[in-house]
């Protein structure tokens, strides 16, 4: 049965919202709307910022949720991996002068560190949630301090590659000049690139999990780990592999986020919390859930900052508590 017959009201609501949103993006705003929401430029920019941030959150949280979904491993050092990825990427990009090389190095380095962490630490305490949590908290405390020691308290910012530099004009009219000439909205191209990377990663992860043999094994492992082992699959190797991908994604996100925003001490906790909230809202272990959660949280954060600046930060947590009250297992959780 098609979705619109199964849930006619929900479909109408979602479709209606989408239509209104599309109209709001492309139409020239009438005066009454400007009176309510302020200038259209602010709105569209906030929307795009929110989407970009959501993309970044998705990159960080997808690794977190992948690791949790398969192995029930709680890696509270995930934020430290983000920050370390940023620093490593920065060093490599600075010395080689190549941004792409920096991003690749961050991915590889963190994938290796993640695999090492899985083999040395998590394998020893499989199924022992609390100890894993404590241990990764300990690791993140030490990692934060050592990173502070070697990179100092200054803020680093990457230079994005030349191709991605500058702003582009979007086919969205922000307002009409008195002469009747249309003013188009400009937006930094790099930020759109972040969004594209996030979407590409999401699609790639989805294809990988749903269309490849290893992906099939991973999904089977999420459902029943011991049965998968009994079917003759080397589960330990898959664990290391998934952990490496998850950690590598965090490292990559460090470079991408460090270019869009910046990297500095404290960002580790920020992104750890963001990924926690994203996966709590979206449902632990679900990539789709991480995407939905990232969208909700990214948009809420940016709209909160733009329209109610004082309590914008609190808004994300209000969303989380509301989501938990209605669906304790998260939107896509089982």
């Amino acid at each position, binding site marked *: 049965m098609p979705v619109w017959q199964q849930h006619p009201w929900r479909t109408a609501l979602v479709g209606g919202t989408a239509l209104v949103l599309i109209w709001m993006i492309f139409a020239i705003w009438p005066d009454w709307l400007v009176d309510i929401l302020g200038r259209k430029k602010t709105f569209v920019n906030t929307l795009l910022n929110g989407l970009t941030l959501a993309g970044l959150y998705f990159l960080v949280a997808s690794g977190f949720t992948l690791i949790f979904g398969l192995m029930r491993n*709680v890696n509270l050092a995930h934020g430290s991996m983000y920050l370390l990825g940023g620093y490593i990427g920065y060093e490599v990009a600075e010395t080689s002068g190549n941004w792409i090389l920096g991003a690749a190095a961050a991915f590889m380095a963190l994938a290796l560190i993640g695999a090492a962490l899985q083999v040395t630490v998590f394998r020893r305490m499989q199924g*022992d*949630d609390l100890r894993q949590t404590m241990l990764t908290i300990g690791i993140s405390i*030490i990692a934060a301090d050592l990173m502070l020691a070697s990179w100092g308290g200054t803020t680093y910012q990457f230079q994005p590659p030349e191709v991605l530099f500058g702003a582009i004009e979007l086919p969205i009219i922000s307002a009409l000049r008195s002469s009747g000439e249309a003013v188009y909205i400009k937006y930094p191209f790099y930020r759109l690139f972040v969004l594209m990377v996030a979407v590409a990663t999401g699609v790639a992860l989805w294809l990988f999990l749903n269309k490849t043999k290893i992906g099939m094994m991973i999904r089977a492992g999420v459902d029943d780990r011991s049965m998968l082992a009994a079917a003759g699959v080397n589960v330990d190797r898959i664990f290391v592999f998934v952990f490496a991908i998850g950690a590598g994604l965090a490292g990559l996100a460090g470079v991408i986020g460090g270019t869009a925003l910046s990297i500095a001490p404290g960002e580790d906790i920020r992104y750890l919390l963001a990924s*926690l909230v994203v996966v709590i809202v979206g449902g632990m272990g679900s990539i789709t859930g991480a995407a939905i959660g990232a969208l909700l949280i990214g948009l809420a954060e940016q709209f909160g900052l733009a329209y109610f600046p004082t*309590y914008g*930060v609190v808004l994300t*947590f209000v969303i989380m508590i509301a989501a938990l009250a209605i669906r*304790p297992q998260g939107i896509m959780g089982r």
Partner: protein
Amino acid sequence: MKQVHPNWWLAAALLVLYPFPANDFFTVQIGAYSLILGTIALSLMILAGYGGMVSLSQLTAAGLAAYMVPILGTNTQGVLGFGWSYWFTLPVAVLTAALFSALVGLIAVRNSGIYMIMITLAVAVSVFFFTRQNYEIFNGFTGYSGIEAPKPFGLDLRAPIPFYYLCLIVAVTFVLTTLYTARTPFGLSLQAVRDNPRRASALGYSVPAVRISAFFLAGIIAGVGGIMLVFLNGRISPGTIGVDVVIDILVIAVVGGLRHPIGPFLGALAFVLLENFAIDLIDRERFNTVIGGAFLLIVLFSPDGLLGLWGRLKPQIGLASMTTKRGSQSSGLDIEPNSLKGRLSNENV
């Protein structure tokens, strides 16, 4: 009347006589501060040890109680400050912490294990941000300062020795109450819910009600700890309830041991000593590496903290006879030596 092992009398005598050889710094900054941190960590230990619920928002409950003191009483910032007498302010502050803790419990008890850790952490962070952004009630980034302890009957409670004894009385009262409560029907039902929620529920206990009551009681302890903290510092600001401090409290409880209410106080003492004297051992800047490393070692090699370490070392240094003796005397006093792993995996059934 149950016999008490001489070691406990010795410990009591040491704690009571401690301020006399010690100077003001040791009395307040080491002694009283350890007792306060221990009290707040005790609130976490009760939930984690007896209830199998690791809540990271207990420091936040303590912080809210601490905020209530200048908000309801007097402050020098000129924000709110109803000027209530301490006889009203302090009970209301404790009640606020307890209600907040129960509210967190209400949200969190539907999930368990790691989910609960994450939810309570998120609540703690959102309150931290809220207090930092809100100027009408919490006076934003600066918070409140110049808060004075009450002076009932002319006795300055903030003077080093009275303050130390106040903290000691609070801590001892809560430890004894915890030990007593653990053996009441409520305490036993809480442990039953920890060990096997489905079975406890089948026996007719309301699992959420038991858990939320535990959150409420733990909130009272946290609240009193928070009030002591604000008396000690004379100020309260969002930094007091920041994420790093939340993690410190968790570290204290885990390093001390989650099996016996004495654990958090041992952990707090170790933490405070490290915090003050690590500077002599290692560069002041790298304090977090030291504390994180100590925490890591404890988690890796002694899952039940310093208490567990002591329990295992005792037989090796020739105190074996004492261990058994104490064990037989205090049976029922300690909670079941169930490993945390068992607790949490039961939770996840």
